[in-house]
């Protein structure tokens, strides 16, 4: 199969998923609202001292972003699995891993990118400003695609399993730990004045690694689920 038809198939998958998300805007909006609400609960619970909020801010925002991603994971493959579209995706002349990468990219556009775009506003809520705020946005921009990539493996592994929502959380959350540490670490580092470059580099490395490995692992999991 030549490159242009592969590109056509992948862009077809992305376009279809975006179109579906447009038709069901409330689904996509849900995880964003979830993020906003979780991030807003902390100031209410912890109290309004600016120093405390500033300290916990990066960690809270990153955990909230991570949970928002987790919440939307079930949407990546479940519907396609139930209605048979996933079978069709396996039986095409293109490598499944490439189509999977397309689906994960669409998932990130729908549920990851809004988180990145909203993060400066939420950061302000926690008293972050200047460079740390920029680092927060940058760390989420590098980190959320990794979350989608790793999450897709979990989402594919639990296809057809009852109570998969909780199971996927148990599978995926431990794998999210490094991303969380690097991401929140970058922001606290920049707040402490040591700069966030090291952690941002590690986030970038995780992204590259997950881009390289996750689609293949996900494709293998999908094939097993469809047997």
């Amino acid at each position, binding site marked *: 199969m030549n490159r242009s038809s592969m590109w056509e198939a992948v862009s077809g998958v992305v376009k279809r998923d975006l179109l579906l998300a447009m*038709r069901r805007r409330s689904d996509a909006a849900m995880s964003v609202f979830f993020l906003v609400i979780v991030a807003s609960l902390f100031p209410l619970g912890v109290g309004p001292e600016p120093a405390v909020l500033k300290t916990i801010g990066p960690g809270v925002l990153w955990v909230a972003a991570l949970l928002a991603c987790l919440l939307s994971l079930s949407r990546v493959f479940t519907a396609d699995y139930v*209605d048979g579209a996933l079978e069709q995706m396996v039986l095409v002349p293109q490598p499944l891993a490439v189509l999977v990468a397309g689906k994960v990219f669409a998932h990130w556009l729908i549920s990851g990118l809004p988180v990145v775009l909203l993060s400066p506003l939420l950061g302000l809520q926690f008293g972050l400003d200047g460079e740390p705020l920029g680092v927060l946005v940058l760390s989420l921009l590098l980190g959320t695609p990794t979350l989608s990539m790793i999450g897709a493996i979990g989402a594919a592994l639990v296809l057809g399993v009852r109570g998969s929502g909780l199971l996927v959380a148990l599978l995926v959350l431990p794998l999210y730990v490094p991303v969380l540490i690097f991401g929140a670490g970058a922001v606290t580092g920049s707040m402490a004045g040591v700069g966030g470059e090291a952690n941002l580099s590690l986030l970038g490395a995780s992204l590259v690694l997950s881009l390289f490995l996750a689609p293949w692992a996900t494709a293998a999991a999908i094939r097993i689920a469809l047997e």
Partner: protein
Amino acid sequence: MLQAVGLSCRRGERRLFSNLNVKVEPGTLLAVVGENGSGKTSLLRIFSSLLPPEEGSVLWDGQDIHQLKELYAGQLTYLGHLNGIKDDLTPLENLMSATSLAGEPCSNKGAKEALEAIGLKRPIHHLPSKVLSQGQKRRVTLARLWLSTRPLWLLDEPFTSLDAASTSVVTQRLLTHVQRGGLAVLVTHQEVALPAERLQHLRLAG
């Protein structure tokens, strides 16, 4: 030519069939019949390469389909018993995204003609698919047959929830396909009204 050599299939504890040998020549249709749970769908999934057989192999023009991989997928149109229809998309969008995914993208006009060929009139093309009846959804899926140029068709109970008129339209399409030298494997409970020399039956014992 599609050939099954010594196929065995086991689902859980049950052995569905063993040492199954069958050959489908170009220009013929294999109708797989048998009771519910006799392994018809499993056989079709083995033919499609979705399910690896426990023993034996499936050969396409003499080569194992699990070695051909994507090359084999390029020879194949598989329509399972699930429709793969998205409720939020219109029949036209569903059909066009399915064909572009399969690597046979079609124009808007081509998709409309295919939908009309199977008896879905123009106003229906732009409705969300969730308002369609079961039979209409099945027809949206089957419309792909009018756009497929692949030599091998694997169809799982294509006539389910179709009315008599649509059944005969689909049968006519199958006839054209095999007359052009195509192959088809059909899982069905109904009689397929094709000339006897083009039709081969395989009865699974269950």
